[in-house]
């Protein structure tokens, strides 16, 4: 029974396998040599990946990119308390909201020129760009989550004796948590995209640097390997957060849906 469902699952990969075969065939037998340099076959890409992995270069770039993402996330998590305050207190929201509204539509990438002038090329500048990518999704989701806490839960807490601070920590924060986690997921995704953009122009390491550097030496296979790594890691981060959120918050309908 289980082996059968495994086979059925493999069925989903049929189209992918066909496309990969066509690609392999095309770059080996149809494209001329120059063109094939621009589109190496899947086996070539795999060989490149092995080369990068064995030399340790791939891991170094992944580590640097992940570290930047992580540090930026630590700074950006200030969006959670800020969002809770904005959601709970009208006067804070009134003051902060106009600033957020103006800054929010500016894509993180648009900050790259200014940030290079401010921070130079390197970690700080990269982290700043990632920070911008992560910060706003977390903030907006937190505010929204806090505003949408079931009013009867707050009433229930108050008529059981909870006052001000207790209501925030014991009810609002908990009830808002699933959507805050959604904000974190979106934020890390946007941040990951912004990271690669920032590394393309302002870094000496990282996956974004790897693919841009490979371009200058015409290693198309490395470019594709870098791109695939970016995709796979982005997906993994998302899945890990989703999985742990489900484990930690089994009660949340939003996450189980």
């Amino acid at each position: 029974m289980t082996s059968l469902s495994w086979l059925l699952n493999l069925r989903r990969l049929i189209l992918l396998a066909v496309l990969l075969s066509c690609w392999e065939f095309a770059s080996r037998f149809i494209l001329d040599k120059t063109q094939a340099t621009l589109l190496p076959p899947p086996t070539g890409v795999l060989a490149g990946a092995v080369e990068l992995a064995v030399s340790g270069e791939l891991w170094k770039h992944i580590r640097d990119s992940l570290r930047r993402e992580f540090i930026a996330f630590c700074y950006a998590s200030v969006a959670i308390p800020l969002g809770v305050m904005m959601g709970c207190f009208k006067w804070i929201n009134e003051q902060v909201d106009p600033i957020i509204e103006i800054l929010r539509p500016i894509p993180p990438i648009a900050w790259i020129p200014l940030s290079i002038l401010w921070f130079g090329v390197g970690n700080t500048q990269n982290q700043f760009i990632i920070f911008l990518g992560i910060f706003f999704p977390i903030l907006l989701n937190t505010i929204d989550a806090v505003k949408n806490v079931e009013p009867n839960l707050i009433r229930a807490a108050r008529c059981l004796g909870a006052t001000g601070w207790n209501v925030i920590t014991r009810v609002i924060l908990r009830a808002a948590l699933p959507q805050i986690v959604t904000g974190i997921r979106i934020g890390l995704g946007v941040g990951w995209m912004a990271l690669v953009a920032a590394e393309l122009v302002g870094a000496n390491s990282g996956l974004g640097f790897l693919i841009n550097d490979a371009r200058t030496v015409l290693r198309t296979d490395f470019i594709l390997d870098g791109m695939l790594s970016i995709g796979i890691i982005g997906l993994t981060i998302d899945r890990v957060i989703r999985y742990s959120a489900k484990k930690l918050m089994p009660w949340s309908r939003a996450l189980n849906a």
Partner: protein
Amino acid sequence: MSALKVENVSKIFPAANKSAAVQALQNVSLDVNTNEFVSILGHSGCGKTTLLNLIAGFEKPSSGRIECAGKEVKEPGAERAMVFQDYALFPWLTVRDNIAFGLNLKKMDSGLINQKVEHFANLVGLGAFVESYPHQLSGGMRQRVSIARALAVDPTVLLMDEPFAALDAQNRAMMQQEMIRILAEESKTVVLVTHSIEESINLSDVIIVMTRRPGRVKEIIRVPEPRRMVEDTPSYLEVRKKIRDLISDEHDLSDIA
């Protein structure tokens, strides 16, 4: 002895347009004695839930005064714990922690809290489910948790806002019987809001029939044999007919208007 005193309370919900302001309650006065079960009965929109919200302290009366155990009601508090129609259980807490919520706020000794949780979980018949989460329970069981949670903080007055309205007919009848059993073991002052005549006769010492908007006290009826009324006996039918007549009077008025 009087546990709860409502004196000449009116409530007007203001609106931007002055003529659109709604008078929900008009000069409502009532007295609830200790260990008395009082039902507030009326059509939907008669302001009975508003009255309960005022007693709970969720809203403030436009005029008049509410006293609980001799102290004026200014804000929600554990001496007036409420059971909600939609249960309002904290989904991220187990049954145990839901019942313990108000006790934890009182900074009670943890051994004593456990003892009380056991006691009230058993009282409502959920001794075997303390480690479950609310989403794993049926509607009737959730309402039992909600009752245990409110009783655990030992309120002077237990407030119940149409607590069984969301249940199916069998469950509703069973929960009414359960409520009678619980009150026999744990005497309590209760104010129940309901639109079910039968429910109010089955559970109450005193039934307060409200008028249509603006809500006023139309009549106060003493149930002849509180919580021992047997359906279809002459005294039961007599009380029911009396209440029905009072209520259908109200119906006619609103149809004309």
